[in-house]
């Protein structure tokens, strides 16, 4: 099945598979140092529009390429793209671009669905491309107050600063909370 393929990520010319421990020596060193010095979080980072986002890797179940057959759910807003079959599980997919009201872009070869697990539910998120797995120390994270991003800040937990870039941290628990989902039904029934 096509969507079962593992996603290969480019990372400083080192090819590695997500979820494996096959990291470069440099990285291993980095990580061990990080862990010994301070508390922090491992993030998976991805591109959405102009910006780079991150979410806690512990929430991520797997990455898949875009499935062939998505079935639209009647009565759902357009950012709920539909549901598909992942090895016997029926999983909904949310288009993050549409959700965050960005201009929608044609899918290309890097388009990926990140399957996250929140509240024991598996949900797919479409992103433009997955870029990296990084470790961010707690002190490098900031809250949302001084942010100017395209995205409604209620879905943003904060930002993480690395040497050369800024990563927006998604509040995935809120984004995919039961309240948010339930509001989908209320909104549609009002229409």
């Amino acid at each position: 099945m096509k969507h079962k393929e593992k996603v290969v990520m480019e990372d400083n010319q080192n090819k590695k598979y997500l979820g494996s421990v096959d990291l470069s020596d440099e990285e291993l060193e980095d990580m061990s140092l990080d862990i010994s010095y301070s508390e922090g979080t491992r993030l998976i980072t991805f591109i959405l529009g102009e910006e780079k986002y991150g979410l806690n890797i512990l929430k991520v179940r797997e990455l898949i390429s875009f499935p062939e057959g998505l079935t639209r759910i009647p009565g759902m807003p357009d950012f709920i793209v539909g549901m598909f079959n992942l090895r016997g599980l029926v999983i909904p997919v949310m288009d993050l671009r549409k959700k965050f009201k960005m201009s929608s872009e044609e899918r290309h070869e890097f388009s990926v669905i990140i399957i996250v697990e929140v509240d024991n539910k598996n949900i797919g998120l479409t992103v433009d491309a997955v870029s990296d797995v990084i470790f961010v120390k707690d002190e490098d994270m900031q809250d949302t107050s001084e942010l100017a991003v395209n995205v409604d800040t209620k879905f943003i937990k904060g930002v993480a600063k690395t040497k050369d870039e800024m990563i927006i941290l998604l509040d995935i628990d809120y984004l995919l909370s039961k309240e948010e989902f339930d509001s989908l039904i209320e909104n549609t029934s009002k229409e």
Partner: protein
Amino acid sequence: MDNPALEEFVEEVEEIIEDLEEGVLQLEEQPKKRSLIDRIFRAMHTIKGGAGMVMETELADYAHHFENLLDKARNGEIVCTPEMASLLLASIDGFRSFLDKIREGGDVDQKLIDKTLEQLREFENNAGKTTSKPPAEKTVENAKQTDSKQTEEIKNDEIKLEQVAEEEQETESEKTEEQVDVQWDDEDEGEEIAYLLHLKFDSEMLRKGSDPILLIKELTELGDLAMIPHLGSLPDLKNLDPEEIHLWWSAKLVTSRSAEEIENILVFFQDEKNEVKFEPAESPPEDPGLASHGIYDEPEEKEPEQKEGEKTKSESESKEVEEPEKEITTEPDSSDAEQQSLSVQQSQELTPVKDTKKKTTESKTTQSIRVTVERLDKLQNLVGETVINQSRLHLLSEQIMKVDDKLGEMLLQFVEDNEKSVQELQDQILQVRMIPVGSILNNMKRTVRDYATRSKKKIKLEIEGGDTELDKTVTEQLQGPLVHLVRNSMDHGIEDSETRIKNGKDPTGIISLKASQQEGYVIVEIEDDGKGIDPKVIFDSAVRKGFIDETDELTEDEIYKMLFLPGFTTTTEVTDVSGRGVGMDTVRRDIEALLGTIEISSKLNKGTSTKLKLPLTLAIIEGMMIDVGNQVFTIPLLSVNESLRPVPEQIKKIKNKGELVEIRGEYIPMMRLHERLNIKPKFKDPTEGLVVVVQHANRKQCILVDGIVDQGPVVIKSMEENFIQVPGISGATILGDGRVSFILDVASLVN
């Protein structure tokens, strides 16, 4: 609870408790059945031992007290009275409290524990005296003791109960006085006599529409039947006429029934062409010497068969009868003599009938393993995925065939072979999830008993078809509605004894629970012989509540259906047992959540009957796949009445009422699925598309779709598992091509 040993213990005790409860209820009816006391004693002992092993000393102590009581009963020092049964049942509640504590932490219900132990002490004191004091004095003595010892709160509840119990105890103890040793009922059953049967039938019998299996089945109901087939006259496979009987049988029947009863059954098979005879065996059933007559008892061979599951005895036995036939068809040379020698060998180890039985049940428990439902769900998902991949493989091999004939043919052959295994795999995994519905039907015994002891009513519960199997989830979720219905029957149905006698009925009311399987559904019927429901009362109540107009004319059926309306209840008084404001509509909703239906019918003064129709499993339904635009939806076949393409004359438009379709004189409202779901359809004109008539409860609805794609069993996936409940959709399923199809929620579409 992280300790696996403890977890296992809790699960084990839960099972034991169920058995214990059932045993106690049976014992109450047959207080002098030794085997029952033994069974209860063993159960209690196992709890005690197990509790000791996992260091639950309090629980062990608690069980110990009751074990002592049972030991006395075993030794014939006391006889089980309803009071003792109540005590034992109370101890079960105590055990449950202990289990809750172990599982969830917190404290045991110490009040309950102390209360039961207190009652136990009293009972033992009283029981000790019964043997030495005349019964009349004993009652007085008892009453005094209860007065002095019992706290106010217990008194109110228990005293009435105890007085009833004591009266009965009085009669019981009189008996024990006369005969110092208890005469066990089942030892009386030592009257069981063994008969030798000789069953040789007319070889033309099957052609005449009769069948030896009918006789054998009837005989199995009389007692323990052991059969041995004689294969001597069996022809070669090529000469075998499957419509002729080639076998004859010798059988041993151990039964407590009279010879006439056996004669009455045999007489239908006795004619000049059939040799059907029976005679009492000379030797008692235990005698291994019988085996020399070519008769054996409960052969070991049977055990592997019982492994397969909860097969009833008669089933396995009748199967056994068929078995040799099958064997023979493959191995025509398997000789009579071999069979005989085998049976002789087995009979050497022959033990008395009762012991062999015990052995088989014991080995049954060791042959099963415990698996969490979660793991089964995972397995089922995997199997579901395999099934889908299988059909993709099929498509692929057909494509390969177009390019390379030979390779494609080979692959297709393989894929088709594999398909059988996959199908079997799917069937088996579903089978594993099935449990006998008897477990929850039996739970009702306690409910009924407790109610009957508290109220003035006499109620007997009859259970039939407890071995009918149903998906575990369905079975579990059936419990709630069932309790509700049984309580309704007890509370509103069955009258008190006086009224019943006045109405010329037996003072004891009967509630019967019947389960059976019919065409892929399980039917559970709850029937009582109570006062029934007066349609007029329902009608008036419905008018009062504004559901209907006084002038409305309704059929009896329609009237009874109103019982399921939310907020509908005929009684104004709220009792402790039923009528807490949640009415039959809750029951209906529960049953519908299980994809089942409910029907009620009643005859005034004759009784009420509620019929539940449930799918065998929640995991799979028969579905009709229809398409709208490029999307495929599934409609549960259970709700589909018919489908048709209407002619223009059938379509009527009515102002404010939308479109109607006239079908055989009936006007049924039509809903355009594409409008409802906001999909661009292939056909907007009903005469080009297709109209599916669905029914929910008594409402019919036409649904306009593009066409039917397929029909067949579909595996149901919950929407909520990974998303939310979406209005109009009851679940999802995965189609053969791997795509997701939504299952339409007919109930919401109809309303």
